[in-house]
């Protein structure tokens, strides 16, 4: 029995800071925007966090397909910036979308790929017919230490997917994951900012895991890159997904519709799922999408997705990803620091 995406919703905060403004404050001579291919990144409002933006994305997903919230039997919320160390994000989202309380819920954490892990968990329960609908969320309001390279990309955004068996907008045909113990990026309990192994971590981290998961899934599905109309690879910056696509034999044309990182930054657990949503925004029934997430620590989840007729019924009933790129507000570094809590008032 096929299972997959019944509905989807995205939320990106309205505020942006330009990479050149961050570089100006830190006296960075290198053209960071160009070298990262990230020109601006989203910044949460002062009263937004990973929970509030998850609620906004989930409400859009519910609205887009007129889902009865009582049908949702599982909520898994993936994030590396859950506001509470103990107290689930998923329960707050459930209450805010009006579930009937007969459901299971938990928070996931796996750097930038907790959202796709949540999709897999929902897909398993749905496919086994243990639940009717599952809600999988990737949400983050991530922080880079002031002056650190991560500060140019760490952004805020959320994506929510309703996973089920009926009225599919897109079928998930199969997935393949590749996971190792790789300390390329971490944050210890109680520490405000993450640490990372520097630039060299790209090869053993991102590239090794994304290429292994992608090649594994292509082999499992007996497909080649040309069988897909679109591809989405995790977007920690604007360079890595382009380079990994080339390496794997996917074209710029395949990844272009989902490549949103130059304008919103790296939304961590939201990143590859927002890229997928931007692709669903334009894809037609019958087309295929290849998706591969990446989370430091490290792992990659690859998915083969086929767009179904149902996409036409739901697509225009909620905002598209590109709607969140319009009418943005730019912050200078001082106001940005206030938004991010970098100034202790």
């Amino acid at each position: 029995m096929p299972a997959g995406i019944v509905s989807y919703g995205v939320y990106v905060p309205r505020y942006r800071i330009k990479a050149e403004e961050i570089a100006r404050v830190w006296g960075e001579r290198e053209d960071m925007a160009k070298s990262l291919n990230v020109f601006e990144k989203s910044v949460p409002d002062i009263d937004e966090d990973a929970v509030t933006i998850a609620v906004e994305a989930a409400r859009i997903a519910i609205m887009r397909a007129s889902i009865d919230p009582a049908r949702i039997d599982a909520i898994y919320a993936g994030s590396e910036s859950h506001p509470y160390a103990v107290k689930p994000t998923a329960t707050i989202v459930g209450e805010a979308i009006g579930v009937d309380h007969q459901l299971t819920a938990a928070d996931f954490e796996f750097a930038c790929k907790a959202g796709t892990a949540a999709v897999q968990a929902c897909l398993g329960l749905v496919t086994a017919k243990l639940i009717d609908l599952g809600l999988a969320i990737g949400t983050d309001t991530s922080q880079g230490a002031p002056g650190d390279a991560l500060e140019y990309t760490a952004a805020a955004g959320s994506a929510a997917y309703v996973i089920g068996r009926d009225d599919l907008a897109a079928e998930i045909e199969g997935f393949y994951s590749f996971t190792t113990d790789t300390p390329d990026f971490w944050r210890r309990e109680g520490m405000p900012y993450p640490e990372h192994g520097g630039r060299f971590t790209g090869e053993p981290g991102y590239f090794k895991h994304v290429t292994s998961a992608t090649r594994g899934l292509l082999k499992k599905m007996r497909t080649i890159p040309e069988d897909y109309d679109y591809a989405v690879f995790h977007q920690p910056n604007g360079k890595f997904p382009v380079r990994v696509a080339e390496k794997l034999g996917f074209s710029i044309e395949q990844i272009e519709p989902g490549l949103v990182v130059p304008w919103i930054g790296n939304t961590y657990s939201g990143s590859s799922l927002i890229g997928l949503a931007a692709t669903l925004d334009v894809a037609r029934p019958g087309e295929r999408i290849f998706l591969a997430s990446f989370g430091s620590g490290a792992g990659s989840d690859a998915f083969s997705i086929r767009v179904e007729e149902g996409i036409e019924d739901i697509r225009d009933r909620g905002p598209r990803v590109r709607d969140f790129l319009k009418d943005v507000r730019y912050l200078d570094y001082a106001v940005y620091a206030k938004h991010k809590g970098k100034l202790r008032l």
Partner: protein
Amino acid sequence: MSTVPRFWRHIPQRYNLVGTHCPKCDEYYYPPRAICPNCRRAAKMEDYRFDGKGTVVTFTTIYNATDDFKRQTPYNLAIIELDEGPRLTGQVICTPEEIEIGMRVKPAFRILGKDGERGIIYYGTKFVPAEGSV
């Protein structure tokens, strides 16, 4: 800030603007009322979830706030008339130059406050301009 049990009891009305409706006189209430003041015991109230669209009736902009809200200044506090009739006080998220009487607003899920560094985070409904926002 209210105590944790009090906040918990009010979660449905804070997160989703759940009020009440009197089927007899067709009056809507927010915050919810157990008994309709018009009909008293002659009517049985029902729960009603407002979709949160409304109009700014009047507003004030706060420039000086207590420590808990200092980071948010300046912010707009408004009386909003929901389309079904009830009026409530809420924060409207836009600049002081943008807010005006008669402005159409819609709800947004935001942090209302935090109980210091260690305490609970209070989530609930604020408002954003209905035009120009996604």
